[in-house]
């Protein structure tokens, strides 16, 4: 199981929690797990998110491994200027 931090305005879709638990060993399993457990997140997941794993930003790498004790934070999809 992995602890995932959800940003404040999405908490409405996770019964008000900003920390949720998802069974996942990779980034893909995490995203699919979130969509499965919290359908309210799907519009934002479709719009795109970035995921910080132990302080480093991942945008797309499905098979990026996630350790059970990793710090996992959901972020708005990063784009630059």
């Amino acid at each position, binding site marked *: 199981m992995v602890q995932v931090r959800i*940003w404040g305005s999405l908490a409405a879709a996770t019964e008000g929690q900003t920390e949720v638990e998802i069974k996942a060993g990779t980034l893909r399993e995490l995203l699919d797990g979130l969509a499965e457990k919290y359908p309210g997140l799907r519009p934002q997941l479709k719009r795109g998110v970035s995921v910080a794993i132990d302080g480093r930003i*991942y945008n797309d790498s499905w098979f990026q491994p996630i350790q059970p004790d990793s710090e996992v934070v959901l972020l708005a999809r*990063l784009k630059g200027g």
Partner: protein
Amino acid sequence: MALDSKSDTQTRDFKVVGTRPNRPDGIDKVTGRARFGADITAPGMLIGRVLRSPHAHARIVSIDTSQAEALAGVRAVVTSADFNKIEDDDFTADILDNCMASEKAMYDGHAVAAVAASSEAIAKRALKLITVEYEVLPHVTDVDAAITADAPVLHEGRTDETVPAGMSGNVISRFEFGHGDIEAGLAAADKVLERSYKTEATHQGYIEPHACMASMGPDGQADLWCCTQGHYMVRNTCAAIFGMEQGQLRVTASEIGGGFGGKTTVFLEPVALALSRKSGRPVKMVMSRSEVLRATGPTASSSVDIRLGMTKDGRITGARAELRYQGGAYPGSPVEFGSMSAFAPYDLEHVKTVGWDIVTNRPKQAAYRAPGAPMAAFAVESAIDELAKGFGLDPLEVRLKNAAREGTKSSYGVTYPAIGLEATLRKAKDHPHWTAPLGPNQGRGVACGFWFNFGGDTCVSLNITPDGTVTVSEGNPDIGGSRASMSMMAAEELGIPYEKVRTIVADTGSLGQNEVTDGSRVTFAVGLATIEAARAAKREMCRRAALVWGIDEEAVEWIDGAAQPAGPNAGDHPPMTLAEIAATASNTGGPIAGHHEANPEGAGVSFATHMVDTEVDPDTGAVKILRYTVFQDAGKAVHPAYVEGQFQGGAVQGIGWALNEEYIYGEDGVLQNAGFLDYRIPVASDLPMIDTVILEIPNPGHPYGVRGVGETSIVPPLAAIANSVSESAGVRMAQLPMSPPKVLAAMQSK
């Protein structure tokens, strides 16, 4: 540039990386031979021009193009009828609608039709023959006015699920970040500052207007030349708009005359392709400066409310920001990045940011260097400064006391790895600038800034020529000198002189998908791919040497530009240099290359502290920049001159944003300053030299420790200058730009 902390891969002593060689594309650029967007031509080429709405908000009832089509020399006229409707892809549908209005003209300057003719003069005359019947609607251009109950609503049904019910239809999204209990945090403070800050929309201000040339055949195959920050993005976006296969559209990036995020989308390209297909001829389109300002992505204007609590000894106990950004007529202002980055430099127990994305009748925003962050930092860094000085504390000490470090949980939720903020603050404190004497009407200001980095799709192909020179093909347009950095990293990895490598930017037919040149990612991500491509070539060259020596591949290693036996039992074969291996390549298996395709992740963040002295003329309110110093963490400066260039360029864009640049709309919703006369970017005589101090706290996610530096430098200047003016003019300016009339009025009412 000593490395400030050690880790295995970054302790090597670099031979090429860190030096200042001349860039490979320099000669063309100083002789006028370099080919930018508007320099491209083709036989039989037509000229395209766009007809733009004079109204800020109007329904397009009808467009009569018959007279224009009848004019001799006109070969094609297009309107939104010439594009197919895009279903369930709001992102692309908005881009197309912005390139060519469908039901409504959403802002002054919005494209409503376009013609292609055999000459510029005929095209201009044809535009005057197109009659558009508009039903003018009420408009709104101010971010706070746009969300009042009686404000005209631009779109139906675009508000997303994050927005509470009952709000104006112009409110598109709501973001919230942070942790802890704000009210408890603020209660623990000795003083709570509540203040609102406003900034006007500004433009990236690149000197090269948008330009492209399209050539589309009846068989659906097409070629496109354009100045862009990402020709693969242009290919994919145009393919989606035309419903064509991406492989059928080849896009070649010309040299780009500046972008800063403003050329990370398309404005002309789909229109040029449509005109080319309809006329059967190549069509060239070049924007005028007023079209660039009226109709291509400025960044958002902002309205930010801050509540900040601080103890007498300078500890921030609670921090709250409410950010309202308007990003023009379509969803997508960078308010989420403003909300995430606002308090990012600080270690806060109780922090909360709420961001609102709002639409108004203004041109569709595009990213502008660390999009969303400068406006947020202007509010936060001004508030911290005001509170610190209210307690009589040293503004640098207060920032050091609250600075985020390794292990700090950031305001956007991520726990930081090794970061360089504290190092920049200490470097600033020890720098002679901090203690230099000041005269009358002079003041010194400091501010911190931060920006993210990310990887993104990247492809590099590295080829060894028969004579042993190296060509590197990458897919990211080079704005600030990245071709030099790629050649340096390739030379470093291969152990050969920099002059032996030539790097070019290849078209979309030559490499796999590449992310846009933005997000300060190129030196990081493309550099990583270049290094991996060089390593692949080294492995192949070692294999060839092993074949020649009849020994096992594993027994060969690459040292100082040559393959050599890995140890005594591998035989005492003399080293084979790259040139020798290249000369016999066709005998040992064929041409030698290395390539690397990846979506490199693990980019680091880059922090900065800026310090600026200003002098104010008490009689006129004019603010003069006396001295400016940038302290920023680059992880590893591959080419120090171009790292300094990013620091200086970002700081000066910040100076323009702080003092003079703004979009000025009249009551009629028409842009009043669509030109470089009254959209005032800094000129050479406005500025002192911009001093730079590069810090190198390595990013563990890159073999050489590289961090992206391109964007952070625009984040601190707005606040640093405002904090300096609070000393030199004795007034706290909470609105940008700090134009002389505003500063004078503030001083007079002091």
